[in-house]
């Protein structure tokens, strides 16, 4: 099999201007990956499947990863003018101090694909794609028209992570029920307290349920059977 660098240059040669970035993997597994720009992803995927030499006809695994936004505290050097008393005289002095500053690194949702070739019996090659953010720009192109095996797996990612796959023929929740809101595999997901309601609820359980109800804005999950 070609090395990951060769595959990257093959993609760039076949699709000029395709956004492909090599992501090294420091683990002993040595499975490096290519991050695709979502705009060219379908074209790149079709090239990988149909190229006679690469022939990645088997998309084995599709999965999501949640990277929440991180608050990073770093020290920044700041120069400012302060008034000090030097030798009994008040003076304006320039002083450099280190100041902690908080910066929020925006989060994203990532989708990871593991491709193999049944025709050439090689693989894996790992592809990944990232959404712009985790809230309103969560669309990624679907590869289901190219590899049917993505059909249920993309539905699962849509269900559990909330990535919206444009071009998917049947994008519905896979594992959770129809009226369910929220995406349980996200790192900041909060379990509903009320879904195993005890018929003779203890006060502590009721208190927890009330606190939870308040936390999610007074709307309990539908269909959970909790006091509805």
């Amino acid at each position, binding site marked *: 099999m070609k090395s990951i660098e060769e595959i990257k240059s093959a993609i760039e040669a076949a699709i000029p201007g395709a956004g492909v970035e090599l992501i090294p993997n*420091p683990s002993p*597994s040595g499975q490096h990956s290519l991050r695709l720009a979502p705009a060219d992803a379908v074209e790149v995927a079709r090239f990988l499947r*149909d190229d006679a030499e690469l022939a990645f*006809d088997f998309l*084995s695994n599709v999965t999501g990863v949640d990277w929440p936004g991180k608050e990073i505290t770093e020290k920044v050097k700041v120069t400012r003018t302060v008034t000090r008393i030097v030798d009994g005289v008040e003076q304006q002095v320039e002083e450099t101090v280190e100041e902690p500053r908080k910066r929020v690194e925006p989060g994203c949702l990532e989708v990871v694909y593991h491709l193999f070739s049944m025709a050439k019996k090689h693989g*894996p090659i*790992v592809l990944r794609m990232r959404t712009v953010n985790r809230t309103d720009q969560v669309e990624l192109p679907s590869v289901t028209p190219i590899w*049917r*095996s993505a059909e249920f797996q993309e539905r699962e990612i849509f269900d559990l992570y909330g990535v919206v796959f444009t071009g998917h023929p049947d994008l519905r929740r896979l594992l959770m*029920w129809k009226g369910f809101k929220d995406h349980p595999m996200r790192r900041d997901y909060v379990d509903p307290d009320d879904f195993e309601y005890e018929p003779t609820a203890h006060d502590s359980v009721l208190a927890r349920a009330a606190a939870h109800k308040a936390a999610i804005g007074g709307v309990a999950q539908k269909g959970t059977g909790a006091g509805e």
Partner: protein
Amino acid sequence: MTTPAATSAFLREKMEEGWNRPPIMEPDGEAELLEVAMGPHHPSTHGVFRMDLALDGERVIRLKPVFGYLHRNHEKIAEGVSYLASMPYTDRLDYICSLTNNWAYALAVEKLTGQEVPERAEYIRVILGELTRIQNHASSIGFLLQEMGASGTPLMYAFKEREKILDLFESLTGSRMMCNYMRFGGCRVDVSAAWLDAARKVVAGLPGFIDEFENLLSGNEILMARCQGVGILRPELAVNAGVTGPMLRGSGVNYDIRKIDHYGIYDRFRFRVPLGDHGDVYDRYMVRILEMRESIAILNQALKEIPGGSIMDPKAKIRGFRPKPGEAYGRIEAPKGELGFYLISDGGPNPYRYRVRPPSLINLTVLEDMCLGSNVADVVLIFGSVDIVLGEVDR
């Protein structure tokens, strides 16, 4: 059978969109469609699984599988506990084959950390993995026959043999089905000479069982009439839909991960990969029978050659370790298909991301394609020939 090169030529030809989608079927005439929810408590669905069917008389016009009745978010649970603590949970994925689940997970973690496995432990894994494959295939054929209406007898023949294998598992691991046996870099306890003798005795009895099973079934007129030409899966679609395991090989695609990846020590054993011709229910049945025979060949070699030595590096850390940041995807040929685990480590004691690639779920992608146009009674058979376990489908 299509050669690999022909497969990709086929793909290139079929560039138009939608070739890999199930066809849209129209009812004959003005007949009203009958919508049937088959499951989740239907006895043939192997657990809690539902198929929403649209029927034109007896003919299936549409079939939509509905999942999630057994969903407990195994992946989320695993992200909250240490690497070792997920090992017993993997038993509950495909609860018929807990040892191969253990193996796939151990393999993925070993890839992530770069651990080596001693030779004796590799042999033990192969022995247990192949015993698991035999008992899975035997019981899945038993269930298939049960669903065909052969109430009890073939299933009990299969279970009689399965019981002997489960006894071996129990005496080694302490549990019949929830074995929790493999560890990162080896196995939990060593096998004794007495256990190996007992295993040899069980394996020596297996060819006789398969002969008897085949005499009973393979040439049976009813089985042939019900299975041949039913639920045909074309190899091109099977590859494109990510179907793996006996189902893929029943369609004639030569792809066995034991031969491709040579994970563990599979390059040392001589065995053949049985392939089907037509991709129908009968071919899948036959591939499973032949795979059992090949597993016996592997078992005979492994039980003969198993070396002494340790089953685990004494310095290996199995608990409380923190893999370096990175990721790994490890996969094995589980009895039902490609079982893979994808792990991302952020340097902490718990996996940052833990993903199971479930063969049962992905093999069901083509269920609708195989069932369209056939009778409801055949849907039961086609579904049975996929061989799924809901613990793995819904995770």
